């Protein structure tokens, strides 16, 4: 079956036709490309504009989406994403509306959708209940930035029950034994944190990131996606050339939102321009 991105297919969700990460990576491999995965916070700056942003990202060639649920205290995120969270909350977003946001996106795309959710939002709703709702809305994966494997038992159970990929982070500081353990627990892909620190735009990709990509590739067959600090098309190119299967870009896109809050047209134009370049940079060059 051809799982090429189906833009604008209206109507209901058809869970059976949703693309999995597996299928996405296979499709990309055939075309000698890496994945470009943009991250935004649902409802920033407001629900409808945020939907327009998602459509723009799809037009630019996004291969999957990472969608954050706004949280009051996002400790793993830098100032850019924290402000994005606060804008979304100010615009009236909450857990229920964030799920509605996912449902809306599912009306026009079948590509994988990953959630980034701080654990308290999951805990408060009830872990099982949260994953159940996520499945209903067509979510492919869930990542909690503050949920290491030590505390993830309940989440993993729910993930398995509802057939959702539980994504885990790996960092430069992650030791070998731990890396093994995480690779065993994870499904979908491994999320590699490329910098020491929180999310936010950076000038360049560190050499240690390149080493770590190789280290994980030696450990596991799971695809690796690199995030945190990937903010230019040249970064996307660098990490994919280094062997990663994809790049996740958040702050660089969100900066274009915060910069153009009163000029939504320009905002969408600039996002289109930047993210198209990033998608182009995913072409694997054979050297």
């Amino acid at each position, binding site marked *: 079956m051809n799982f090429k991105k189906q833009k604008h297919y209206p109507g209901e969700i058809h869970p059976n036709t949703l693309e999995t990460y597996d299928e996405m990576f296979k499709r990309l491999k055939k075309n000698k490309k890496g994945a470009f995965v943009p991250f935004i916070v649902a409802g920033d700056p407001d629900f409808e504009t945020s939907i327009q942003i998602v459509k723009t990202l799809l037009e630019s060639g996004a291969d999957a989406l990472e969608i954050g649920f706004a949280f009051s205290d996002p400790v793993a995120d830098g100032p850019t994403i924290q402000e994005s969270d*606060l804008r979304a909350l100010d615009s009236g977003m909450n857990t229920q509306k964030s799920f509605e946001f996912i449902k809306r996106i599912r009306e026009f795309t079948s590509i994988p959708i990953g959630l980034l959710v701080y654990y*308290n939002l999951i*805990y408060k*709703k009830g872990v099982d209940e949260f994953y159940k709702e996520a499945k209903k809305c067509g979510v492919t994966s869930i990542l909690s930035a503050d949920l290491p494997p030590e505390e993830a038992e309940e989440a993993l159970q729910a993930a398995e029950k509802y057939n959702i990929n539980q994504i885990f982070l790996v960092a430069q500081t992650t030791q070998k034994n731990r890396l093994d353990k995480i690779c065993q627990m994870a499904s979908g892909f491994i999320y590699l944190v490329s910098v020491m620190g929180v999310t936010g735009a950076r000038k360049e990709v560190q050499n240690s990131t390149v080493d770590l990509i190789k280290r994980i590739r030696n450990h596991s067959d799971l695809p690796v996606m690199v995030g945190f600090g990937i903010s230019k098309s040249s970064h996307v190119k660098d990490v994919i050339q280094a062997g990663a299967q994809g790049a996740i870009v958040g702050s660089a896109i969100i900066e274009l939102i915060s910069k153009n809050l009163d000029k939504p047209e320009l905002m969408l134009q600039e996002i289109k321009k930047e993210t198209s370049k990033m998608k182009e940079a995913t072409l694997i060059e054979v050297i």
Partner: protein
Amino acid sequence: MIESGKFGKYGGIFAPELLIPALEELESAFLKYKDDKKFNQELDYYLKEFAGRPTNLYLAKNLSQKMGCRIYLKREDMLHTGAHKINNTLGQGLLAKYMGKKRLIAETGAGQHGIATAAVGALFGMPTDVYMGMEDVKRQRLNVFRMEISGAKVIPVETGSKTLKDAINQSMRDWMTNVQDTHYLIGSTMGFHPYPTMVKHFQTVIGKETKNQILEKEKKLPDVIIACVGGGSNAIGIFSEFIQDSEVELIGVEGGGHGIDSGNHGATLCAGSEGVLHGSLSYVLQDTDGQICEAHSVSAGLDYPGVGPEHAYLHTKRRARYVNVTDSEALRGFQLLSRYEGIMPALESAHAVAYMEKYAQKPENKGKTIVVNLSGRGDKDMFLAASILGVEV
């Protein structure tokens, strides 16, 4: 990690992956040195010679007479830098030194923990950055100056509620970025494992001394111990030695702000619910979705929407009882102790004093032996207290 850091189901390690290796390193250093002879000799030396331990257990005669009880004050307010916080900062500062860390960071609310960290940074020659919410910077200008004169850099935090919770967020972000050479010196029994256990360990000196002192003076255990609860370090420090003694009532006093019904308070155990904040499962002030609410208390040290996980455990086990007093009641406690005993408590500690008065007034409590943990002195709050009382200084 070697241990799970759980108190019943509370606590744990809800930390971003980047921090896990640092937490493992910290846990193993803590487990190694906490019973190490040389480490403890050195720590005891600094506690005694630098901080001024032991502190007195002082019989407040005038108040005892007025209330018809035997009221003892554990004088943590007499410590160097003005509060119990120095017990923990000396312990963690020394541990950081043993671990070869080069730099300290800390969050602070009232500024007491920041000052204690700045003092230890100066003592051990470690550069120190302190994150402080902009609101608190404004409320506690004098303490900002105190930190700066000790060589610490105070970094105002402008995000979110601009108070302690956001200072903690920002400290965690700094630590994630500089984890290799920096020790994050958390100021209370909160956060991810091993902090709640480690901070408690360094604060148990309060309870150990109190137990010996009360047995010497009264030849029996006290009937009740009352301590204020922000993150919960002074309270757990004095409670810990008495948890096994089921006849001793333990009471934690939270910041009631404008009253629970007003929604403006810091009474996490009295009015919050279970949630995960800043690395552990405990009680938090949150909305129905789990978004964290802003706390309010006249005292910056109690102005926090979370609480240490061991208190959540003691609360649900009903081993300790948690109550709250309002801003204005706390101010009354502040005046009461100053007027009757010539001792000006920190506004945090004044909450414990205020509840002591309520407790002692109940007929069934007449004649009881009460220990109040006087966690800090009131110098830092004099401008605030004067302005609330309408006095120009």
